[in-house]
């Protein structure tokens, strides 16, 4: 009997402001695997990540999102988070007036096995900061305020390691980072995989971040549709040839359907 995947997206169609932006998307990710979602800008990759997380900016018009055997469709993002889904934001928001440490305490509050108080929390934070080459003084700063792009991504990695989700969706975590920051993000992903045997869905249009990863499956998205699925060898092919052929095929399909 086949093992059911950790995440199963089936026939997902979604819209924003009554405009359909995802069309009949299917995606299965078994537990413990690393999948990559690639595609040109505007293909709908981030939208899919946000929909899995339950972003109310989008409307799920059809299909299902099953996670760990549970239908996520009607759950709020906080419940999806507590079920074990994590979305790392491409552009993490700033929240003035909220110190990073206060925010982190709130994220673990009430999570069995993760809740820590006082000194224990502080000790864990110091460990994680050391692993990510991050100054612990950041914990006392307001969340995201005045942080560079690289620092914001480090904070995302910090949360990934703190929350130990079953599934981590990393949305363009590599975008706009210098070599050093990319190294920290790679280390964060590595630590996450090693410490939790977690499952990864990496959204990117850049193959550099994938060089040190053991990728199980690659999905290519164009114009809101998953148009190709293959093993890790597809990454090298895309590195060589880009997305042009997928885009052309998608245009031909669209023209065919329009006739």
């Amino acid at each position, binding site marked *: 009997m086949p093992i059911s995947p950790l995440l199963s997206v089936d026939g997902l169609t979604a819209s924003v402001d009554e405009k359909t932006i995802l069309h009949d998307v299917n995606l299965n990710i078994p537990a413990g695997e690393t999948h990559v979602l690639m595609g040109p800008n505007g293909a709908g990759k981030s939208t899919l990540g946000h929909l899995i997380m339950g972003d109310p900016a989008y409307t799920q018009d059809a299909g299902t999102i099953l996670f760990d055997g549970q239908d996520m469709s009607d759950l709020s993002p*906080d419940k999806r988070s507590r079920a074990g889904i994590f979305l790392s934001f491409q552009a993490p928001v700033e929240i003035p007036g909220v110190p990073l440490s206060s925010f982190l305490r709130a994220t673990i509050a009430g999570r069995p096995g993760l809740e820590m108080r006082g*000194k224990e929390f*502080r000790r864990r934070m110091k460990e994680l900061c050391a692993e990510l080459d991050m100054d612990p003084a950041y914990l006392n700063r307001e969340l995201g305020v005045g942080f560079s792009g690289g620092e914001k991504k480090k904070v995302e990695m910090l949360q990934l390691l703190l929350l130990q989700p079953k599934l981590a969706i990393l949305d363009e975590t590599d975008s706009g980072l210098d070599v050093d920051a990319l190294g920290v993000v790679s280390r964060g992903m590595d630590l996450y995989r090693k410490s939790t045997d977690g499952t990864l869905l990496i959204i990117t249009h850049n193959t550099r971040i994938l060089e040190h990863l053991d990728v199980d499956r690659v999905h290519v998205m164009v114009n809101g549709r998953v148009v190709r699925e293959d093993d890790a060898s597809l990454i090298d092919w895309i590195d060589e040839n880009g997305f042009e052929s997928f885009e052309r095929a998608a245009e031909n399909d669209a023209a065919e359907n329009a006739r």
Partner: protein
Amino acid sequence: MEQLKIKHASAMPAPTWSWLRMNDTEISLPAALARGGDIEIEAPDTLLDTASTFEGALAELQEHLDAKRANATDDRACVRAAQMDQEGAGGRETSDGSLGDLDTPALSRYQKRATLEEVAGDVTRAFETGIGMDARSYLNFAAGETVTIATEAGSTGEATIRVTGDAGTTVAASIDAVAAPDSSLSLTIALDAAPGSSDDASSNQGPAGVIGSELRVFAGAHSHVDVTVYVTADAGFVAVDDSGYVLDEGARVQVRHIVLGGGVTATGMAADLRSDTARIDIDTRYLASGSERRDFNYVVRHRGKRTISNIIANGVLAGSSKKCLRGTIDLVHGCKGSEGTERETVLIADEGVENKTVPTILCDEDDVAGNHGATIGHVRPEQLFYLESRGVSSEDAEALFIRAKLEDAALSAPDERIRAAILRLGNRLIDGFAEELEGDAA
């Protein structure tokens, strides 16, 4: 209990419609309070053994200003009009019924007062504090004496003033701070009051009492002055924090008002950016819960050229609390190249709160900029999604902002006593607050 009322406190310099009830406030104080409480001034002798006085510093500045504008004449029409009125000429109309000089404008009471003040150029007469004369008199009376803290030219100094209230008493500090040219002065004022040794942690209502401070600051040429005021009193106390600043050329002043407690608090400050390139940055953070009331009044007068001011406030209102913040940036004639900004962010955590935000820009000069903005409401949708995506529900998100306001203050508290006062306040609002912060750096 019989009440003493300070009427028309924290008045806006240029009032708006009275029915909006935001032009000023009324501060009610229990009338039968004895002088009591405790005032501690922690400062090195070098700051306290001084011959400098606030009045002396203003007189010296006046001499410089008078020398600079010795032969300058001001023939603007508004000056003519104000002076005609003052001399009893009765304005434009003449006795034969003709309209007279039509180039002389009619002035409002505010315009007339402002114009005469400009022409006089009298720093001492123009000196003002944010809450006003009556509060100043009350606080000075409660304080009994004024302590002067002053730096020598080119030196650096730090002082902490602790005002600790007691049930049934009124206690206030009256401080003059004089920063000599090219010196740096850092002041921390802690206004605190707790119910005392018979502390009942389950009660949020302490006994009635008043705490306050009256502060006058002179920032000399190219000096740096840093003032932080913490208000951490329990809900039964009234806290009155009144101050006035005069800035000489190139002075840099940073003011932080951190108002976390107190049943009724009134915070007022006025700043006179008298000389060129002076700059003041005001950073206000407040929290009000239960039925607490917060009142703030900021008045910044840009008089020197290329002066800069920033009034930035960030607060959280919960329960059925009320808050009014008036911010007036006055770009006075002659302050060319100046820029004033005021911005407030208020998070409304409960539907029962009342919030008033009154930004005002007065302008009598070209080549200046006055900016204002306010963000009032609940957590923004993109912030909420981010928080929710990390497992923080919308209900928990608003509680997080309240907690964060206290934690932020505790983390940045300059010493253990202030930190302990914040933790005490936090424990009254949030179960286990201090325990969770255990191990965090002070």
